[in-house]
């Protein structure tokens, strides 16, 4: 009896307790929604019944699957959009890798001037909504096909752009990769920072040329970061909707997410969720590949992580040309779109670029039905509704960042310390799953799950806490990635030593695990923080008048074409997020790069 109890006590290690706890909680928050979504694809919904002979609402059916995969029109309904989706996801992740990787190498490993500025600026594309770049592309490169004013490029050069260049897969890939390359920049930058310089120096002593060193030493060492970037950007490419719809429509190239939206709007959620299920499965496939290919290698980057800081590569006569190139890039994809937004907010009448049209009306003006767009709304900074929505956004972002940060450490701890067991793998993969679920679907499912009390969980409908839970689940993947990589860098021997001298688990956490990697944990909170500030589709079904956030309240202005307000809110968010990133970097020594587990 006593030995049985002891055996039980021995098994009750903190990591086991935590694992079980997280398995239950994540199971409820991740697996249940997945299951509910899957279930919808087998059910006849109200408007679907007319196309399924003899079916009643709520019946079980194979019809959605049959329609999508096997019907005469399956090519148009599913396979062609799937093909386009894969092309976009692949193209975007490769390009984001190249851009992000090159920038990261220049900033981390060379003597390029103005690094601090470049490093700060390079995260801005991810903060701005992705449609800003799509819109910029159309303004620059559109041709006669979609009418309206001439594209700027054509106006300047007289050359008409071909359709494939102006619309469709090509610009979709370009603009999305410009939006997501910060992932590559952060992750690969973090990995490059950790490379032991001795490895490169040894190679150099052995007579290896610089390209050879890059190919045989550096790239293999940053391979895990490369794969992580690929995984994160590829998954985003699978689910993205706005940019493909906007740029693809004119030449009629559609993607899987079009199918999701079209069928949700057509009130055929069975068919719509099927597209979501396929997206999730594709993401899982990439996740699986990621585990297979680099699962074994991941550790070896960090073993050498504490080596000597690498010397910087002298760019020599390339130093300034490269600096100009990088600055040109930053100006083109960050400064110009930002300025376009700023200009929009200070033009009384849109599109008339004259001094007498300049105004601060949309920022600080009184409500007026006659000035400018005649919106009858006070300027942004004096608009109490907008300001309180902005406050809600900030509170939500901070709360979610803190919670995901703490959970990230704990889940990461459980995953790392239980390594090799199925529990660890299950936790690892479950915590990544929300990243793969289209947020439009996730929002609807959470609404249904939390609107009524279920067991010990009270109804959270309309509360701020529901927003917190949804965002926490949705952005947990970032925090867990950070947590795993942080804990992995701490050798278990530190903890074992503490156990020997009788330190409790809580003491070990407090005195060792948290302080040692403090900056990494804080970094793990930054991405959830940024992501919350720009979340719309996840929250739109859940906010109430009292819990409106910046993005949801801005809809009413977009709705009526009052873009000065929409763009002004985007600008405020950019300023706040960049400001807090720089501030936290100063205070905590954080960097987003560490946050992504680089």
């Amino acid at each position, binding site marked *: 009896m006593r030995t049985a109890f002891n055996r039980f006590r021995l098994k009750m290690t903190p990591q086991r307790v935590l694992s079980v706890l997280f398995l239950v909680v994540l199971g409820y928050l991740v697996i249940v929604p997945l299951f509910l979504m899957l279930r919808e694809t087998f059910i006849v919904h109200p408007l679907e019944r007319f196309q399924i002979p003899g079916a009643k609402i709520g019946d079980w059916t194979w019809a959605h699957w049959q329609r999508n995969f096997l019907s005469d029109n399956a090519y148009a309904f599913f396979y062609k959009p799937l093909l386009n989706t894969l092309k976009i996801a692949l193209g975007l992740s490769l390009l984001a890798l190249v851009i992000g990787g090159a920038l990261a190498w220049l900033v981390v490993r060379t003597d390029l001037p103005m690094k601090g500025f470049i490093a700060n600026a390079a995260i801005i594309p991810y903060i701005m909504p992705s449609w800003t770049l799509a819109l910029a592309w159309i303004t620059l490169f559109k041709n*006669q096909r*979609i009418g*309206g004013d001439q594209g700027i490029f054509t106006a300047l050069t007289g050359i008409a752009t071909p359709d494939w260049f102006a619309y469709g897969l090509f610009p979709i890939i370009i603009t999305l990769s410009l939006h997501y390359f910060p992932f590559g920049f952060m992750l690969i930058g973090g990995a490059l920072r950790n490379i032991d310089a001795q490895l490169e120096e040894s190679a150099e002593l052995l007579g290896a040329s610089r390209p050879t060193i890059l190919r045989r030493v550096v790239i293999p060492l940053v391979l895990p970061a490369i794969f992580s970037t690929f995984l994160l950007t590829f998954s985003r490419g699978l689910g993205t909707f706005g940019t493909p*719809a906007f740029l693809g429509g*004119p030449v009629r190239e559609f993607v899987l997410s079009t199918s999701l939206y079209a069928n949700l709007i057509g009130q055929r959620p069975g068919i719509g969720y099927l597209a979501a299920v396929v997206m999730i499965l594709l993401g899982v496939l990439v996740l699986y590949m990621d585990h297979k290919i680099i699962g074994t290698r991941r550790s070896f980057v960090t073993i050498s992580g504490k080596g000597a800081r690498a010397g910087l590569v002298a760019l020599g006569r390339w130093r300034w040309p490269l600096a100009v190139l990088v600055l040109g890039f930053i100006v083109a994809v960050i400064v110009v779109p930002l300025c376009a937004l700023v200009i929009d907010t200070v033009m009384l009448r849109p599109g008339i670029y004259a001094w007498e049209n300049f105004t601060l009306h949309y920022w600080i003006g009184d409500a007026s039905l006659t000035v400018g767009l005649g919106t009858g709304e006070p300027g942004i900074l004096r608009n109490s509704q907008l300001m309180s929505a902005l406050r809600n956004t900030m509170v939500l972002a901070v709360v979610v960042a803190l919670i995901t940060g703490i959970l990230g450490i704990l889940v990461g701890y459980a995953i790392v310390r239980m390594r090799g067991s199925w529990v660890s793998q299950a936790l690892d993969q479950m915590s990544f799953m929300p990243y793969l679920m289209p947020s439009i679907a996730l929002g609807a499912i959470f609404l249904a799950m939390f609107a009524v009390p279920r067991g010990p969980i009270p109804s959270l409908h309309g509360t701020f806490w529901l927003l917190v839970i949804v965002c926490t689940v949705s952005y947990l993947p970032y925090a867990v990635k950070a947590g795993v990589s942080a804990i992995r860098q701490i050798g278990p021997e530190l903890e074992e030593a503490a156990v020997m001298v009788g330190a409790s688990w809580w003491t070990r956490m407090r005195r060792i695990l948290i302080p040692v990697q403090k900056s990494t944990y804080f970094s793990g909170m930054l991405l959830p923080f940024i992501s919350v500030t720009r979340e719309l589709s996840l929250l739109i*079904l859940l906010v109430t*008048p009292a819990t409106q956030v910046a993005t949801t309240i801005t809809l*009413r202005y977009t709705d009526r074409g009052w873009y000065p307000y929409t763009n002004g809110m985007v600008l405020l968010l950019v300023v706040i997020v960049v400001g807090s990133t720089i501030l936290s970097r100063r205070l905590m020594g954080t960097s987003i790069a560490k946050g992504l587990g680089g």
Partner: protein
Amino acid sequence: MDFMRMLRGVAALAVTAGLVTAGGMAVAEDWAQIEADAKTEGALLVYSTTSRTAKAAEAFSADTGIAVEVVRLGEQDLIQRAYQEAAAGVRDVDMIVAEDWVAARELLSNTGYFVNYVPPTARELFPERHQDPLVLGFINRVFGYNTDKHPDADPFVSVWDLTTEDYRGRVMIRDVAITGEHQNAFTEWVRRSDELAADYEARFGKPLEMTEANAGLEFIKRFLQNDAIIMTSDTKISEAIGAPGQDNPPYGMFYVYSKHRDVPLQDLRLKDSRQISPTLGYYYPIVLQLSANAEHPNAAKMFMEYLGTLEGFAPWADSPGVYSPNPNQVPFDGDMPFAWWEERMWGYDLDFAAENRGIVLDTWLKYAQR
């Protein structure tokens, strides 16, 4: 999980309750009592697809002292949210200002979660067919062209013109896949397939040869095969057609007529077709419904009443293309009264639309993807 069965049970119950109330209301209604009760109920919550409801609500609150919160949601978000909340028994929302009534009716009305209510002004003045569902206003969508290119005459004769070589790669439409009302509108083209086919014959002097099941679907096929340009925003369409200084401007199909508000402001060379046969476009209602479980039903009724008056409709009356069923509403300067449009434009049949919009969407998706 007997969720669906439970749901149906609740729905049936609610339908009965709804019918009883509706019947009761028709018999005798003490409006003074409703007004008195409304003042004691507290703040009203409205979900609305149109952001102008918030403006109307402000004026209403100033008049009556009844606070109104308006949450602005997209058509499908509104339906989804109202449906999920009602199914879960949440009693937040008191009334909705909804579009895409075909979808909303299936999920919100047929389930008994929302009921129709006809306030005094509407009962007295609105045509009876616009009382159930109670219509806040109608929106119309039109065909348009650039007046620099066509200064003298409307270039359109028949909708079938858009499927000819002259219009190849030149006609823009908001993506039918993401526009529920377009899907509804095309079901009417299926329902009135014979008229559509006759129009083809009148235009080209030969019968329409079809590979699709009817002339409506045949149109969708030919229209898309004629390299139609699919856009995501009506604003972009009207600006693209109307921008000055174009050699080869595009044409627009089914963009909202209210965009003509911007014509003087942005110097657009934009005009809508007043002769294209057999329909100038289509119109659809913005619908008001009362939650069957409303916590503030009387305040909601008062707000519904207010929206039916000229004063309540004012936020919508400041542009063309939105029409109150209230016959006393003067059309926007330069616009025609709704009755004029109603004669020349197709609406759609709710039952037929519900049954056929899936087919329309599938035909669209089939040919939209090249």
